[in-house]
């Protein structure tokens, strides 16, 4: 997979973020405009293109959901622009309850401790789905990819919870 190759990293879901950042800095230095001061226009243009490719690749690989979507699309399952709905009653019921709990935090007498507890809960869910995803994306069997895609969809809801939680946190701090 091109993005992983760019950073000379193995194409696995549990990417080493420290290494990724390090390689990114190395690559950025190598294509820095200063190095191309005396070079031809064509070389300068190529360096600019390379820079934007590196930035795109970093943005995708850094983000767990985008990374998973990228890995899926490279294997022929592109869910990035889909408008399909998710219909898993048990999962959605849990999401509904979590959203209700989030709503209650705003009216709580001790919001800070509830925010901490909620954060821990989201973290646990994130870990659960990420661990499953790492396995599924490592599977050679392409029939597993649909299951993995479903997991990515669920992970998106978990990230949405995280977003909502930080929005509530910001509001409380104001």
């Amino acid at each position: 997979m091109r993005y992983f190759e760019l950073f000379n990293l193995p194409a696995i879901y549990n990417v080493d973020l420290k290494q990724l950042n390090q390689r990114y800095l190395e690559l950025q230095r190598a294509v820095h405009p200063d190095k191309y001061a005396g070079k031809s226009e064509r070389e300068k243009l190529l360096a600019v293109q390379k820079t934007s490719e590196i930035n795109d690749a970093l943005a995708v690989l850094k983000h767990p959901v985008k990374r998973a979507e990228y890995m899926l699309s490279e294997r022929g399952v592109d869910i990035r622009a889909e408008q399909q709905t998710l219909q898993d009653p048990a999962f959605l019921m849990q999401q509904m309850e979590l959203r209700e709990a989030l709503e209650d935090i705003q009216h709580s007498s001790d919001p800070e401790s509830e925010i901490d507890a909620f954060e821990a809960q989201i973290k646990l869910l994130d870990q659960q789905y990420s661990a499953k995803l790492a396995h599924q994306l490592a599977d050679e069997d392409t029939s597993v990819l649909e299951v993995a895609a479903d997991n990515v969809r669920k992970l998106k809801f978990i990230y949405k919870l995280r977003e909502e939680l930080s929005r509530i946190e910001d509001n409380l701090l104001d």
Partner: protein
Amino acid sequence: MAYSDKVIDHVENPRNVGTLDKNDPNVATGMVGAPACGDVMKLQIKVSDEGVIEDAKFKTYGCGSAIASSSLVTEWVKGKTLDQAAEIKNTDITAELELPPVKIHCSILAEDAIQAAIADYKSKQTK
């Protein structure tokens, strides 16, 4: 992005927010979610023995368009038979609420919620 007056009206005065007793054999629930934006929608219908939707309630966590779409469909399904309700298309919702293309998925969510509720009712009846 500007919401249409109809969307704003539904958001400010949502119709039929709430829940119905899920243990009632005549009550069915449709749960759907949109991964793209993380919206979650619950639509409940209460169906008479004659197969007519007597009551509908919704609860939606999402943007204004998602709330308006679900609020609108609770109004629309009331008094309809299951077959009539099943005919509601997302394009009817986008037209009524004047949703922009980026919000079409909200109307899809509402259409799928009706379908899911009807499917849940049918599976409840055969049990």
